[in-house]
């Protein structure tokens, strides 16, 4: 798998360049982490380095100041709701496009592909007015529906490209045993597809957790805001209290970092699959 097109002794300059770029990527995040455990009084003298005294209290402080018990709940609700709804519709569609090939399925694939490239700015305003009519503004359900629609084309293609590789013989055998399409979907396609379900779920969850534009537009009531937009208003509210701000930011990064450590390959392959042709 690993191609080495240089001789080994030439690898040292490679490492030097690569290390400097990894530092550029990681050091800023490390500074954020240092700041989150630094006492507020230390910022003036030591803006970038590790803290001389670790102050974990920043986290409870930020938790209380930002009412994070509520905010965490809001974000988790959005993530879980969107992952479930989006996976449900995408699994059905991915299965159909992979194994049932309905007439005109290529038209649907083209529609979804165009859907991916439409800039959100084209439809966000009519959608906002529509959501206002339907009283879906400032509700989590409204945002869950939007997030599911936004991520569904990607998830559908990801699931389709996985299910298409499942052996046809399994499906034919089940068909001969008299199973109907729904039974085949639930008893054969779903159990065999858990790897792609996990990957798609992680990517959808990450996208929802990090999303900014729609959260900003569709939820204005601070009681219903998710992490991303709360953090944004936090930055304005506690403008110079970097200890509090950084602790709040780290609380948003932590779940992502932990999941990334556990599922790095899934995240990387899932996130880049949209950028790669099949």
């Amino acid at each position, binding site marked *: 798998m690993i*191609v*080495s*097109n240089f001789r080994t002794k030439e*690898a040292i300059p490679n*490492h030097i360049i*690569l290390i400097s*770029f*990894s530092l550029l990527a*990681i050091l*800023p*995040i490390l*500074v954020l982490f240092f700041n989150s455990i630094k006492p507020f009084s230390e910022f003036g003298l030591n*803006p*970038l380095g590790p803290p001389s005294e670790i102050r974990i209290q920043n986290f409870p402080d930020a938790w209380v100041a930002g009412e994070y018990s509520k905010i965490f709940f809001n974000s988790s609700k959005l993530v879980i709701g969107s992952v479930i709804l989006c996976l449900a519709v995408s699994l*059905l*569609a991915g299965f*159909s496009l992979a194994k*049932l090939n*309905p007439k005109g*399925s290529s038209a*649907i694939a083209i*529609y979804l592909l165009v859907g991916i*490239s*439409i*800039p959100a*700015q*084209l*439809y966000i*305003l*009519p*959608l906002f007015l*529509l959501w206002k009519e339907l009283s879906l503004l400032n509700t989590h359900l409204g945002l869950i*529906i*939007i997030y599911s*629609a*936004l991520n*569904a*084309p990607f998830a559908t293609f990801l699931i389709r490209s996985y299910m298409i590789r499942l052996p046809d013989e399994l*499906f*034919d055998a089940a068909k001969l045993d008299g199973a109907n*399409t729904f039974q085949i979907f639930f008893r054969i396609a779903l159990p065999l597809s858990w790897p792609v379900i996990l990957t798609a779920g992680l990517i959808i969850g990450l996208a929802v957790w*990090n*999303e*900014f534009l729609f959260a900003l537009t569709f939820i204005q009531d601070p009681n219903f805001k998710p*992490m*991303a937009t709360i*953090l*944004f208003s936090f*930055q304005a509210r506690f403008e110079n209290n970097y200890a509090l*701000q950084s602790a709040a*930011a780290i609380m*948003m*990064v932590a779940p*992502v970092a932990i999941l990334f450590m556990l599922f790095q390959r899934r995240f*990387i392959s899932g*996130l*880049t699959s949209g*950028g*790669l*042709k099949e």
Partner: protein
Amino acid sequence: MNFFSNKSFIAWYFVLPVVFIHLFVIGIPSILSLALCLTDWSGLGKINYVGFENFIELFDDRYFKKAIFHNILWTIIFLTVPVCIALMCAYLLTGIKRGQMFYRLAFFFPYMLASVINCQIWKYLFHPIHGLGGFFESIGIQALASSPFTTKETSLYAAAFVDGWHFWGFLVVIYLTGMYQVDNHLYEAADIEGATKFQKFRYITLPMIRPIFIFSLMIIIIWSVPVFDYVYILTGGGPAYSSEVVANYLYTHAFVRFNVGYASAVGTLMFVYVIIIVSIFGILRKLGWEI
């Protein structure tokens, strides 16, 4: 596989939910927007048809032209800086045996973070007193004494820098995937001929990853159109429109001034532009460009 050809409508039931939800959220509002761009609607009251007046007004709007120019600059910056760095890093990565995974994770991690987080990190680092500016001052160097986000000359580039910092690791992984597929014998043959590292890159790697490379350029061009988060959070388009981009301009018209017709006209232009770009790449592929 055709085991349900007699009841192919069942296959349609499976696709309907996704089509329905997508039409409801994206398809129908998009069509509405394409229609509303010909009106002067303000979100309330009567809808008047005004023809192409919004577009005529737009092409006369000096802030809109500025925003378009900034989007073009943004696209050019992203087509050059992150692409070059990512190509170099991916190529160097194929040349090492140890630490591959570490570098990949380090490069990719910023891509996982939310725009609000990345913006907060760099707002702090570029803060004249608290961040790098303060650090440089403490060691006696005058640098970054004012925040690049609030300086007219640099605000756009500073926002692009933060977005690029977050994005380039994604490109590394994509290019790396392409480079792994290159046949090792080609490099061995080049070694025998005594080719330099750069020659191997120029005459073997680059031509071999061309499909992925061209594809990455296309997605950069498309993704540079709706750029919003980084500009909105870091500079808000300012100071004095110096970092205004089309998406932020549209947002102001849509949700601050409620010019529905005008904002829809901007959205329509963005959509048309994206469709043209996608079609150009599609046509080039049909013409046998292997992209």
